[in-house]
């Protein structure tokens, strides 16, 4: 375990170090994207293609009395109008969610959230399809909605899920983890107990490209070709086979270029199924692209947890236990994307980076008349909520103890010699070395000077805050012994083929949405077999061309698929070694691997390159006994554990006392994701996540009025950070390799999204200390900060 200080000044001269393996390298996907030659789903144009538009409910809760489509059907250019009743005849009105619930494709009985799909139209062009929606006459009987999550289980609350047999209330599930009795015993004897109610409001991933699909069903071949905005093409293919009863080998799912995912493109949405049905009933290719409002009001939201956090400690600052109770709003259908045995995702890591004596969480999840989902938004399965809870409550404890929050954290870290460390909720942290990471962040920030500056500013009545967070994430789901999604084990396949001339193609089951897989996976293979990344083609996002695997979300690509890529390359290298031994007329044991070639030990003059071996593997002449021709291999990697990246974040804010406007002045992020494949791409991943964090902490929220109208239904109302709201990011890194990952890498895609919100909120609360504020809930808009300054802080929901 080593701690390395990253040079903070980046020059323009070392942008492309052209590594044969790990290192800074420009991206292979950039040339097409820079020229406008990317191919996103909406760019797919097929001969005779029709356009689909969806009619959505204006009400949050209503009975569908009748749907009259006659006027729409008679409109010019309309090829089909399909209602829930028509889908019911086909047995397709309902579909399974990723959490073993069901969700309506088109409403048959009731609508259960504003924006729910009611009918669809297929027309010759986009505009005609939209026009025809206006001609569909739906009669609704409006019902009382359940909007306030705290009222969902109240006696007499309107019943949302009367479609479920025997359902009499809005209860979704209960879940607990840890030891309630042991935790209660520790709390009973603790010197200090702090309790804080904390709300993580509903937010939305809102990738710049909305969701959509192009379905092309060939009735003669019986084959469905589906281009769609999916982060998990293979999982989707299997689910379509199950939902629609189509044979799996006759379904080809293609995820072309994707304009950002952030978890939004994990679930199967009704629109995808509608596009498939539309193509089947019209016999033509059908395109569906949702608009921005549809994206915000109907597709997978994130968070929406109401948490009570409690922390127990000794007077001198030793943290003993953490306890929490959570009320989780799952919307109208439980569409959470998480391994089946983890209904609350990986929230169990709420014990954070600290060595505790006990921990316990109890959770109740409920249905409300809001959009379904509960997806990532870069949260690696609810870890965002868990880290926010622990890092907020630790700061509350620091305030109670009048201790510096950095000192309190340093005092309680799990120590390097304690790894692998099993937490009180049963998670086995594979590795970690927290203090150097924390110290580096404090060094970059100039922590002591910042505190001095703050003291001086406070004396003048200026509001400056310094916020710290330290996180440990659990990413790379996951070991198939206990992790699956709808019965599909969370493993990933990989195939590597080296062509006769020594060029190669590697086929992945995961799919980039901007993370740069076409570059980093070529680098992983290059590191192992010494073929330059430029000579390695990465194929992904097409189920007909790639091996099965569960896709890209929860920061799992590098931990799972990246391991598969390294191991498949090692298999190829092993075979290459046998062929090399024949070429050099020595035994296998006499050879040593020097990246890119096998050399005879002690005789560097005698060697063959991987390219020469590839030609020999495909060429004329005998190969060693028992060795087949060709140079290729395949693998399916089942991780033995998750990987546990960590990081230390420090945020500096200034608040205008006159307007309560929060300005993020500086943000320092020191991340440890183990072995670093491409530092440029890692930095980019971190920067993006930090910006998400600013959005959630200060701006973003999907709110509803009392009738269930979504108040964040456009980008005029749902505020996303622009270049003016974020600072120039400052980053550093340490390297603590994962002991079980073949190259020691850990996932990093979501670290910054997970780690940054508590740092920002802690900074704002720190700035408001002169007003006696101990907590204020996100999003910390000027009005909410203003209220907090006047002692009127209330939860946002």
């Amino acid at each position, binding site marked *: 375990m080593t701690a390395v200080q990253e040079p903070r000044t980046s020059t323009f001269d070392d942008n492309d170090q052209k590594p044969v393996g790990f290192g800074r390298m420009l991206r292979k996907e950039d040339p097409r994207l820079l020229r406008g030659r990317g191919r996103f789903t909406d760019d797919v144009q097929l001969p005779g293609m029709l356009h689909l538009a969806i009619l959505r409910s204006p009400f949050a809760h209503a009975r569908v009395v009748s749907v009259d489509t006659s006027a729409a059907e008679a409109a010019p250019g309309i090829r089909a109008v399909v209602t829930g009743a028509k889908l019911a005849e086909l047995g397709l009105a309902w579909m399974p969610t990723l959490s073993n619930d069901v969700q309506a494709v088109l409403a048959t009985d009731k609508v259960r959230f504003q924006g729910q799909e009611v009918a669809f139209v297929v027309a010759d062009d986009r505009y005609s399809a939209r026009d025809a929606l206006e001609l569909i006459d739906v009669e609704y009987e409006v019902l009382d909605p359940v909007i306030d999550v705290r009222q969902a289980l109240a006696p007499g609350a309107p019943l949302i899920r009367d479609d479920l047999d025997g359902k009499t209330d809005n209860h979704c599930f209960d879940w607990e983890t840890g030891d309630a009795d042991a935790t209660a015993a520790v709390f009973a004897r603790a010197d200090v107990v702090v309790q804080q109610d904390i709300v993580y409001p509903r937010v939305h991933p809102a990738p710049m490209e909305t969701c959509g699909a192009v379905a092309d069903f060939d009735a003669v071949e019986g084959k469905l070709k589906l281009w769609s905005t999916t982060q998990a093409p293979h999982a989707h293919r299997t689910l379509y086979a199950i939902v629609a009863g189509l044979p799996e080998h006759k379904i080809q799912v293609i995820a072309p270029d994707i304009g950002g995912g952030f978890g939004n493109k994990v679930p199967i949405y009704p629109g995808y199924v509608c596009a498939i049905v539309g193509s089947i009933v019209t016999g033509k290719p059908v395109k569906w692209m949702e608009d921005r409002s549809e994206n915000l009001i109907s597709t997978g939201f994130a968070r929406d947890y109401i948490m009570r956090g409690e922390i127990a400690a000794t007077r001198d600052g030793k943290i003993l236990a953490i306890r929490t109770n959570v009320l989780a709003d799952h919307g109208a259908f439980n569409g959470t994307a998480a391994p089946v045995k983890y209904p609350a995702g990986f929230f169990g890591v709420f014990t954070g980076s600290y060595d505790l004596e006990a921990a316990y969480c109890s959770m109740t999840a409920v249905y409300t008349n809001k959009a379904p989902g509960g997806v990532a938004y870069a949260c690696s399965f609810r870890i965002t909520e868990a880290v926010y809870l622990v890092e907020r409550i630790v700061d509350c404890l620091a305030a109670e103890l009048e201790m510096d929050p950095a000192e309190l954290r340093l005092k309680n870290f799990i120590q390097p010699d304690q790894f692998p460390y099993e937490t009180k909720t049963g998670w086995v942290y594979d590795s970690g070395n927290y203090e150097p990471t924390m110290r580096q962040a404090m060094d970059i920030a100039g922590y002591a000077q910042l505190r001095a500056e703050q003291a001086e500013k406070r004396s003048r009545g200026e509001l400056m805050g310094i916020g710290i967070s330290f996180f440990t994430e659990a990413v790379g789901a996951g070991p198939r012994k206990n992790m699956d999604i709808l019965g599909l084990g969370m493993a990933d396949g990989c195939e590597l083929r080296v062509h006769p001339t020594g060029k190669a193609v590697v086929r992945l089951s995961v799919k980039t949405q901007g993370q740069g897989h076409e570059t980093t996976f070529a680098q992983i293979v290059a590191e192992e077999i010494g073929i330059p990344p430029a000579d390695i083609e990465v194929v992904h996002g097409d189920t007909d061309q790639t091996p099965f695997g569960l896709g890209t979300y929860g920061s799992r690509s590098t931990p799972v698929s990246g391991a598969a890529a390294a191991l498949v390359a090692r298999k190829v290298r092993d075979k290459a070694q046998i062929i090399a031994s024949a070429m050099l007329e020595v035994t296998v044991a006499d050879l040593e691997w020097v990246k890119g070639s096998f050399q005879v030990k002690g005789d560097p003059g005698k060697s063959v390159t991987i390219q020469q071996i590839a030609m020999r593997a495909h060429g004329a002449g005998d190969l060693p006994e028992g060795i087949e021709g060709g140079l290729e291999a395949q693998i399916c990697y089942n991780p033995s554990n998750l990987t546990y990246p960590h990081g230390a974040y420090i945020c500096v804010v200034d608040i205008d006392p006159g307007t309560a406007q929060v300005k993020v002045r500086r943000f320092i992020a020191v991340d440890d994701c183990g072995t670093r494949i491409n530092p440029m791409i890692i930095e980019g991943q971190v*920067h993006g996540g930090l910006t998400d964090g600013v959005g959630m902490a200060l701006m973003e929220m999907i709110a509803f009025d009392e009738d269930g109208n979504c108040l964040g239904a456009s980008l005029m109302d749902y505020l996303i950070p622009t270049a003016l709201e974020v600072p120039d990011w400052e980053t550093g890194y340490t390297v603590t390799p994962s002991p079980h990952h073949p190259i020691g890498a850990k996932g990093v895609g979501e670290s910054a999204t997970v780690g940054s919100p508590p740092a920002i909120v802690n900074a704002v609360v720190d700035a408001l200390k002169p007003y006696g504020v101990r907590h204020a809930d996100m999003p910390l808009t000027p009005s909410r900060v203003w209220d907090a300054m006047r002692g009127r802080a209330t939860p946002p929901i």
Partner: protein
Amino acid sequence: MQVTMIVNDAEVTREIEGRLLLVHFLRDVLGLTGTHWGCDTSNCGTCVVWLDGEPVKSCTVLAAMAGGHEVRTVEGLAKGAELDPIQEGFMQCHGLQCGFCTPGMMMTCRALLDKNPDPTDAEIREAISGQICRCTGYSTIVRSVRWASVHEAAAAQTEGAQA
């Protein structure tokens, strides 16, 4: 109705509906899919193109309004095989990830550099503040524009020295 305009230096004439948005005209009628569409409210800026050299949001311009004018899209940035310095800067400094906002960002940044060859970081941020990138966090976009600015200045100096 019939509309005629110059798109990336070539004159095009098409029969269109009066309500057709410029973004859909470019994408669906002309097949120039480098220009993207990301919101309905003129907030995200993925659809930015030039109208007579000025960046506009093509989701808020009718194709008919572009009649008789000159439009430039991301497809018209590079000169053949040679990338525009702003494109090169985005590649060198990792100014893009998913690439969806990138065409609009680059059109705005190119226009900025044409008016202000040596912008400060604050001026760059101001220039792109009508556009959203969900991936990069903007720092690398700022660096990309600076890369283009520095390299264009160096190239101009070399040309000046040769002349």
